[in-house]
């Protein structure tokens, strides 16, 4: 079955530093979604990537889908305290179900 690895598991950064989380799948993906979960909250959709090599930006966030559609990354430039939370990738192999990654918990030190 599909396995999703997300690294790192935890990341502490100083405010203003950059942050990157990586998502790797054992199978070729149809698309991948990214979500953010604030402490104590529920996941909130950030972006979806569909095309091989696709890059999308949302202000300080940059999302990338690998050429082979087996991996993806989320990069945050100049982190802020509001970026605190857990970031999940959720790949799909072309069905209605999404297998969430293990998540990367980001802490930003002011």
């Amino acid at each position, binding site marked *: 079955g599909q396995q999703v690895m*997300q690294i790192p598991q935890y990341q502490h950064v100083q405010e203003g530093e950059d942050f990157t989380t990586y998502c790797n799948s054992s199978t070729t993906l149809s698309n991948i979604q990214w979500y953010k979960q604030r402490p104590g909250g529920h996941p909130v*959709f950030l972006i979806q990537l569909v095309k091989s090599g696709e890059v999308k930006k949302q202000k300080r966030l940059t999302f990338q889908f690998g050429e082979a559609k087996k991996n993806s990354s989320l990069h945050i430039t100049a982190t802020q305290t509001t970026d605190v939370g857990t970031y999940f990738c*959720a790949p799909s192999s072309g069905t*209605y179900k999404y297998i*969430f990654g293990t*998540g990367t918990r980001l802490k930003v030190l002011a």
Partner: protein
Amino acid sequence: SQTIHQWPATLVQPVGSPLSLECTVEGTSNPNLYWYRQAAGRGLQLLFYSVGIGQISSEVPQNLSASRPQDRQFILSSKKLLLSDSGFYLCAWSVGGGFYNEQFFGPGTRLTVL
């Protein structure tokens, strides 16, 4: 606009007791519906999903079951809770009819089994 409701928000149940968690969606028709469980500090585990009334796909064999008696209602049940059933239960919906649709999550139910 669409909204998703889950209740209760928190629940403390003894081992061996039954469980019923309800999720309803408003403002959309024929949504795809999902149940996830999140253990403390962990990722989301997909438990069940449904693409239509009475259609349930189970992802993890366990003592939980799901039902969809109405188009916008999704229920998670158990006849006898285990300690390992403790966790944060999240219901989610997405627009029906396609794969490439974002999921909208409800506020969740925090279940503690003692």
